Structure formats: C-alpha cells, structure tokens
C-alpha cells in the first residue's frame, strides 16, 4: 500500500503543454507514472509524448478514466483548474502552482468541504509513492520503496531528508508535500490519518516550518490518535518576525507561528524532534531499530 497515489493512479496533467507541465510530465512518464491524459484548452486533439491532450478535464476524464490530476497552470487560472478537476470527479488533485491569491484559495478550500476529493497544495511538490506512482515534481531517483511516510511543508527539505533515509537504506512508502502557502488544501492531520491507516507505513517523518500553527494541531492529533511513531523536524528557528522566508506561508506573525513554539508543542506531546535533517535520518533508523 501507499497513500493518495499508487499503481491505480491514472493521472491527468492540467497545463501539460506549458513549460513546467511539459518538463515534469516527461519526468513522471519516465518514472513509470500512468499519465493518461493532458489538458490544455485549445490544444485538444494533440498529443504530448504519447499522452492525448484534451480541451477540458471532463472530456479527458470521460475518454481516459483519469482519477487524479496534477496542476501546472499559472496562478491566475489555477483556482479555476482546481474547480474543474473537482467537478470532473478527480479524487486526488495536486496543485503545484506557486503564487495563487489567498482569496482564491479561501474559496477553493472551503468548496472542498462539499467534495469527496483530496487537494494537495498549492505551492507544493506533489505526492510520490516510490515504485508506484510519481505525481509530483520531486526527483524520483533519490527515492526507494519502503515503509517511511513523509509529510512536509517544504520541497527541497523533503528531498534532503529522503536522501538521508535512502543513504541509510531506509525506503519510503509515500512522500507528501502539503505545500508552503498560508491556505492549503490538506493539512498535516489529514495526511497523518492516512498514514496511520496504511499498514505499510511503519514510521512517519513530519517536516514543519514557521508560520501558522498546523504543527501544534498535528502534535495534539499524534498524541491522542496515533500509534505509528512520528519523527518531527521544524525549520526556521532563526527566522525573524514579519519576514516571509521563501514560502508565502513561512512567516512568523505571532507566538504560535515560531519554530520554538512548534518544537515545544511537539516535545510536550512526546514526539521525537530532530534538530537537523541528518538527525531525522538517525532518529528514524533508531525508531526502526536498523
């Protein structure tokens, strides 16, 4: 097993003929992902590296049985793309796009409440289940199949940690980049819940950062609801107040949103917390007893 994406994932790429979409579609195809359709309005009928391109998601879904989508369309059109995927029945939607207006995401994320689907992102690297399906912009090469679940607000930090694990011969079940924006479709808790329900996942790495208080809520959830061990890592202890650290959502705007506050909450909940990515690898290895 894995969570969110696996061998049954039939992927549709929104914005497949754009620069980013084309580049990553090529990579996902090489990684073995079943990319069954692409959508670019006005380019229906063309094909991209053997993948048929459609004008609308509805048409693409009908023709190809796509059940998941990944979104590479520019920010002004991204919310529309999410709505299109949602209303066309995609069950997992990864929105890679960075720079979607917050008010668009308020609308999108609240609309999710009436839908059964899962939205990952935006401003995220996507989801990758090694050996099964890569619905992301993550470098598949550094992953190896295994039993560690990863959920992270940061892309490169995830790669760094995956690399630490792979170097120790510790494989991953699924890596989920939930995104670095203030408003995201899916928070830590929903992903933790899925990992908890996945018999293949033996340990989970949770990578947080400054901004918001999602880590605190996750800590409470882990303490009260989970039996799978979690190793946590928080970035941004040196971040000053009021400055955006790369991610739109990574900004200290009050006591709760500092790395310190998050770290304390994790410790209080009895969760192992690493102080740097290498230590994450060490803690996971110790947890697994390898």
């Amino acid at each position, binding site marked *: 097993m894995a969570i969110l994406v696996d061998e049954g994932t039939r992927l549709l790429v929104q914005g497949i003929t754009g620069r980013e979409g084309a580049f990553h579609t090529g*990579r996902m195809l090489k990684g073995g992902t079943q990319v069954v359709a692409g959508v670019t309005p006005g380019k229906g009928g063309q094909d991209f590296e053997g993948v048929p391109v459609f004008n609308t998601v509805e048409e693409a879904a009908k023709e190809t049985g796509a059940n998941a989508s990944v979104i590479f369309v520019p*920010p*002004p059109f991204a919310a529309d793309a999410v709505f299109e995927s949602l209303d066309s029945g995609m069950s997992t939607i990864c929105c890679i796009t960075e*720079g*979607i*207006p*917050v*008010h668009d995401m*308020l*609308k999108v*994320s*609240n*609309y999710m*409440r009436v839908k059964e689907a899962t939205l990952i992102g935006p401003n995220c690297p996507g989801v990758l289940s090694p050996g099964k399906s890569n619905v992301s*912009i*993550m*470098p598949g*090469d*550094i992953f190896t199949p295994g039993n560690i679940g990863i959920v*992270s*607000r*940061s*892309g*490169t*930090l*995830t*790669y*760094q940690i995956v*690399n630490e694990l792979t170097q120790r011969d510790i494989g991953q079940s699924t890596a989920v980049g939930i995104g*670095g924006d*203030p*408003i995201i479709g899916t928070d830590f808790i929903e992903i933790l819940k899925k990992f908890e329900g996945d018999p293949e996942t033996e340990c989970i790495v949770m*990578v947080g*950062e*400054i*901004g*918001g*208080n*999602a880590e605190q*809520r996750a800590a409470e959830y882990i303490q009260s609801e989970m039996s799978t061990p979690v190793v946590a890592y928080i*970035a*941004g*202890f*040196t*971040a*000053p107040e009021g*400055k*955006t*650290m*790369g*991610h*739109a*959502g*990574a900004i200290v705007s*009050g006591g709760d949103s500092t*790395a310190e506050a998050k770290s304390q909450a994790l410790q209080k909940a009895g969760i192992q917390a690493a*102080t*740097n*990515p*290498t230590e994450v690898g060490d803690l996971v290895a110790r947890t697994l007893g390898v």
Partner: protein
Amino acid sequence: MDLYEHQGKELLREHGLETLQGIVAETPEEARAAAEKLGGPVAVKAQVLTGGRGKAGGIKVVHSPDEAEEAARQILGMDIRGHTVRKVLVEGGAEIESEMYLSVTVDREAKQPLILFSTEGGVEIEEVAETNPGAIVRLHVDPLIGLQPYQIREITFSADLSGDTAKGVGKTLQNLYSAFQKLDASLVEINPLVVTADGKVLTLDSKVTVDNSSLYRHKDIADLHDVEAADPEEQRAQEAGLQYVKLEGDVGILGNGAGLVMSTLDVVAQAGGEPANFCDVGGGADAEKISTALDIVTSNRQVKSVLFNIFGGITRGDEVARGLLSAIEQTDISLPIVVRLDGTNAEEGRQILAENTPPNVHTEETMLDAARRAVELAKDGGQ
C-alpha cells in the same frame, strides 16, 4: 504588501469607510499648509511601514499651523524601527467618545476570514488578548456565503452597542469586509475605530496588507510599492527573482529551496554562527542567477564567509557544480565560500569542484560539517 496609512485609508474610503480628512506632506512647509487648510487642531502622523510609531514620537497632536510645521520638522527624517520617515499625514481632529478595534484577517487554521472586534481599541489587540481576552469577539466568515447580517448583529449585540453606534459599526464592518475581499487583503485593521461626540463612527488609524500573490490583478496597488523604503539589497534580489531576507549575522547563506535554506540558517546557528541572510536561488543551475545571488549576499559588508548549500534534485549535482564554478568566476569574491553538495550525482559534482576549485572555495559533504566550517571561517574574520 503593506500599505502606508494614507494609502490604505484612501482605499478604505473608496469602499465606504469614513475617516477624518487628511493631507499628505513631505516637507514642514507642506504640513503647515495642510494644517491651515484643515483648520483647528490636527494630528501630524509619520508614514512608515512599521508599527510603534506612536511610542517612537511619530505622532503629534498640535493646535496651530506653526506647531504643525514644527512637528513635521521633528518627525520627517526620524528613524522608526529602521524605517526613515519621508512623509507625514496631517489629519483633522475629532472629539472622541470611545475607541474600538475592528479587523479582518485570514485564519490559516480555519481557512476562513476572521473578524476580530473589541470595545478596547487604541491598544494593540495582542495586548487586549492577554489582559482581557473576553473583550474580543472572534467571528469566522464562510467564504462560500460571505458575511451575513446576523454576524454583524452578533458583533454589535455582544458589545452592547445600540442605536447609531450599532448602525455605524455594522456599516463599517460590512464595508471593511467588502474591502478585505475586493482588495485581496490579508489584513485590514482599524485601530482605533472611534465614536465621536456627535455620534459618528470613524476610522482613525488603519492598516491594510494586500496579498502579494494577488497584485497581478491590482495594478493600481502594485504601483504603490515604495521602492525607496525597501532595503536596496532586498529590492535587487526581488528584481532578480531571488528570495532574499537580510539578517544581522556574518555568515552569508545561499541554497536551493526555501525549506532547505531555512534549515541551513538553523544549522549555522546551532554551530554557533549567525546567519547574515536568507537567500533561496531556486531550482536549476543558472550561473547568472547564482552570481547575482553571490553578489547580493556579499555586498553586505558584515558577511565574513558564505555557505552555499545545494541539494541536487531535479537538477543533477554535476550540473550544479559547473554552474556554481562559472558563477564564482563571474564574480570577484575573495571571501571564503563553503560549498556543500548533496543529492543526485553529488559525488560527480563534488569531484568537479575539487578539480577546478579556486582557493577560497571549500567543499564539505554534509550540512553540519559545512555549517561548522562556514562559522569557523567567519570567526576567523573571513581569512
């Protein structure tokens, strides 16, 4: 994007909020003229993109054009939390009966706009939250249906407002929420919202922050961006498409990916150093971009060593190494640069660096070692 008080107020007025009459002045003479035009007592208020100007002496209430000129002379040029005052807002007076607080912000947890209201205005809401949390009414708005009339009633009744004050606050909230939406704001705050002796409800001071990601559809607001007020290095980084934040330390830091760079800062601090900046060069091995980044980071005179932390993901390590070398060639940096290269094709990359590296470039295999090295080098004074 934070707006100056006078800019934010102008936008709020366009959405129906009532404020005092105000005139922006850039010189003491303009402030005098403004005070003359407004008549009566006026407030001369420093226009800066930071809080705490009141405590810093950036707001003066005066009773004549002479005094206004003098106040402006004192305030203009003042430094408030690192911000130089270059404009003042001269505003007419009002007889204030009571002060309230009203804001709309984005609650990340609830994923909904959050309204905060308090009858204890004029002080920072965080202070009220600590001293008298019961005085704050919190109310979420569901973006699927928007602000409802009953929510306005919940606010006004909870504060025991009635008559014209209740009406005025209700109307203010309706307009403020509408402004919040239409301006794509991440924060609109009125503090204090005052009731005047003649029963009017006025926005006395306000803060408007517009979501940067939405600026493509608010050209008029984007144009308000004050290039002069920005840190020149940060401004240059922004133009080059780099994520750059200036800090106080002496270890310059570059890396690819915001999370990794944030983590690098932490590791440097753990190693006993002090990061001089946050700089994310993004994906890819574009020599041009890396050299600009190096230039910006080292243009900070405090920087004594540079740590370049790269994780080869999509871009392979060997390509990154070549890009880095070419960038270092393009610049003329004698400061020590510690390079840590990991990820896909990291070994090949490290080999390339080892073979061609200039004497001031040091390579390390791990983040921790690299951080320690950079901190040491900085402590050695960049030798």
